């Protein structure tokens, strides 16, 4: 890419160290960003990428070290100073007010709140010019709540550009995008570079890093462990650097599908808040098969997950388990029917943070296995938890430890153990590896594959297309509450799935803009 001017760094981080209690999130991180350059900050979840960028943007104060922008040191802990110096940040989770319009959101904070009136005309003109220049198509008068996720991200970028940002920080910007939207984002970023901006691109997706960056910095456990020119490296090397050791993904054998264990026909559910419900979907989960559900988040995954978990009942359509229709559908009947449920949010839904491991282990089975005439069998429960901790290799100080002290991976192992030890017929795995390190990811995937081989029907819901394509025997795409037909493994390319994810390809109905 052209225009990289390394003589004069626009951004310099020197020796940044940040500790949270005993945890060191960043240790002596130093790097420069040149004008017109894209640096990719690569690292696993928990490697310290977001913390580092929050320090740079002034949301955290570093314990040691110094941030300079255009040669001038930035006062620590002051996002306003960072903004004024020309640093713009697009967060992983958007910071937009849903009840305001696009232009109001962009102006918010850039103009004094106590101004008698906002100068709408000038602001909108500037926004239109910027969206033209950077190919960020969005209507300044649209309400944020009416926009798609991709459009909201464009608003976030416009917000930074509106404040004349010269340095853009993008934190996992593609996590919520379809492949097509990602391509559009990259076009915008290339445009920005041509116009002399500099970019820090945070990601753990290797092909994107290879596609967009000039230089790759690899963070591991808070430390900068490697720096490579993108042209001189490849995905294999980067993934090895990121993990620190060679870990192999489990080799998956082909499945031999059996009888249908769960079938939905023309089934609908009510919407959940702003997320759509299910709209007349047909889905069959077969024994010995992993069914992958691909889709951008917020397109009905929650509705399907809640349905199978027993939290909601169908509004219409038929719902059968092993050939017999379900009645009186609750979480308890779902568990009794042999459904293992791995919830999306292991902190809020899967566990009770201040309960110990024993209590969390028996959360679903206390009534049937550890309670007699109203009295708890704590001794049995504890022995049970101890056995499970051993079998599923949960690293902890013991069954009496509060679960909030466990890492995400160990928490997930406990949930896996809790639901898998009852030899479930059906497994619902909703984002089972989100936020886990590679070791834990492989462990979870291995366990799911083993359960599949033992004859369970597995539904894997994930926003990570790579994960879906690697693990699934058959794939469905969900978009706006509708379900695509079933695609056999290997018959679809990511781009084709992307078309379905964007809502195109469904018959009869047109995809709303």
């Amino acid at each position, binding site marked *: 890419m052209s225009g990289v001017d390394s003589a004069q760094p626009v951004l310099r981080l020197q020796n940044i160290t940040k500790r949270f209690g005993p945890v060191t999130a960043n240790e002596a991180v130093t790097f420069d960003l040149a004008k017109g350059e894209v640096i990719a900050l690569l690292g696993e979840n928990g490697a310290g990428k977001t913390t580092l960028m929050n320090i740079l943007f002034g949301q955290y104060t570093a314990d040691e070290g110094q941030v300079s922008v255009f040669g001038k040191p930035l006062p620590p802990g002051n996002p306003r100073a960072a903004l004024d110096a020309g640093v713009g940040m697009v967060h992983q989770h958007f910071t937009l007010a849903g009840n305001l319009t696009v232009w109001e959101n962009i102006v918010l904070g850039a103009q004094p709140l106590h101004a008698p009136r906002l100068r709408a005309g000038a602001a909108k003109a500037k926004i239109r010019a910027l969206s033209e220049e950077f190919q960020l198509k969005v209507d300044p008068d649209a309400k944020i709540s009416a926009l798609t996720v991709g459009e909201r991200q464009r608003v976030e970028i416009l917000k930074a550009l509106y404040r004349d940002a010269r340095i853009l920080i993008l934190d996992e910007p593609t996590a919520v995008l379809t492949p097509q939207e990602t391509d559009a984002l990259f076009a915008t970023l290339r445009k920005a570079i041509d116009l002399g901006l500099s970019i820090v691109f945070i990601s753990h997706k290797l092909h994107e890093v290879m596609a967009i960056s000039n230089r790759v910095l690899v963070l591991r456990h808070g430390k900068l462990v490697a720096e490579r020119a993108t042209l001189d490296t490849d995905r294999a090397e980067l993934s090895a650097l990121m993990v620190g050791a060679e870990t192999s993904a489990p080799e998956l054998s082909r499945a031999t599908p059996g009888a249908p264990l769960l079938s939905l026909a023309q089934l609908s559910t009510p919407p959940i808040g702003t997320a759509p419900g299910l709209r007349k979907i047909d889905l069959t989960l077969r024994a010995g098969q992993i069914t992958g559900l691909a889709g951008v988040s917020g397109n009905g995954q929650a509705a399907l997950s809640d349905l199978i978990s027993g939290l909601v009942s169908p509004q219409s359509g038929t719902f059968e388990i092993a050939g017999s229709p379900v009645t009186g559908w609750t979480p308890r009947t779902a568990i009794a029917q042999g459904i293992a449920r791995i919830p999306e949010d292991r902190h*809020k839904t899967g566990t*009770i943070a201040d*309960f110990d491991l024993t209590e969390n282990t028996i*959360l679903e089975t206390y*009534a049937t296995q550890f309670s007699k005439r109203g009295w*708890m069998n704590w001794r049995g429960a504890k022995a049970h938890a101890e056995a499970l901790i051993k079998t599923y290799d949960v690293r902890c100080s013991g069954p009496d430890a509060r679960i*909030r002290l466990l890492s995400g991976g160990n928490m997930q192992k406990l949930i896996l153990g809790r639901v898998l030890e009852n030899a479930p017929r059906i497994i619902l795995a909703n984002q089972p590896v989100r936020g886990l390190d590679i070791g834990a990811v492989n462990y979870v995937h291995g366990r799911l594959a083993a359960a599949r081989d033992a004859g369970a029907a597995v539904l894997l819901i994930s926003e990570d297309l790579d994960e879906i394509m690697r693990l699934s025997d058959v794939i469905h795409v969900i978009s706006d509450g509708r379900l695509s037909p079933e695609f056999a493994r290997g018959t679809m390319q990511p781009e084709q799935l992307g078309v379905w994810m964007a809502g195109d390809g469904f018959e009869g109905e047109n995809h709303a803009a």
Partner: protein
Amino acid sequence: MRLEPIANPSLTRRLTLPALAIVATIVIASLLALIAGGNPFAVLGQIIIGAFGSKFALLETLNRATPLIFTGLAIAVAFRAKLWNIGAEAQLYAGAVMVAVLGTGALQLPAPLLLTIMALAAMMAGAFLLLVPALLKTRLGVDEVVTTLLFNFIFLLFVSYLLEGPLKDPMGMGWPKSAHLIPEARLPRIVDGLRLHWGFALALIAAVVVWVIDAKTTLGFEMRAVGQNAEAARFAGIPVTKVILKTALLSGGLAALAGFSEVAGLKGSLTLDLSPGFGYTGIVVAMLALLHPLGVVVAALFVAAIFVGADSMSRAIGVPSYLADIMLATALLFMVLAILLTKFRVRRD
């Protein structure tokens, strides 16, 4: 400035901070005593003497602690399940009304039987009074803080009507009070000649029972799960609504026992000034006890001692007994702060 959570607070931290809270309370009380023209050492000393200094003082403190243990338990049980019962005052009076209805001659039974029936009826009345707001909460999403709080005023007016009407003592010279309980309906004294009645023992038993429910029973496990994280509890198949309703029954019943024990044990008849806000003070007691059932006993004794001691101090030294209210309020505020600081560390940024 920001608060940073502490993953595993050390034992030192968990013990020092509450101790500091008590020290801070004493310092503030001393300053106020000084302003009121008393010698702080004399004032605090007199409070302690007034609460524990004689057999009479000690028994008075235990008597005063009795209803506070009941209401404190009622609040602790409810708050642990995140059921915000502010209506213990009304539930207390509901229990007291049942005692006045059944114990003034309507039922002629041997004492043990009559007392048991009265206690059960009182509990049922209190339980019912909290069941209504709990149902409104679970069915319609009505905020129980509002309903239980307003029930206090409604119910007190209802009691006022009863004492002017159906329950009015015909021999009461026109005073709004119920008739006296028959002898079989009175809780006997624990030791002859000393003013301590069996209500205190009953309160201690109730605390142990609640603790056993909490730690050993399935219902206790469910109540804790629902209180800590209702979403996870629901996901795991715990019948959240049923658990909330059961919690309401238990909490309302416990609060009503305070009314039972005050009328049947101490007063012998129902008046409108039966409770000087035991239902509300129960919230303070439960909070000071960190919602632990056995802690409630200690906290109730502490609160009762301050009130009884301050009354006596006021008579002896002339510093107003309002000091007790202030001490209680500061103790609570500092305790809340202490709890916050055991869980979080303040960082300057």
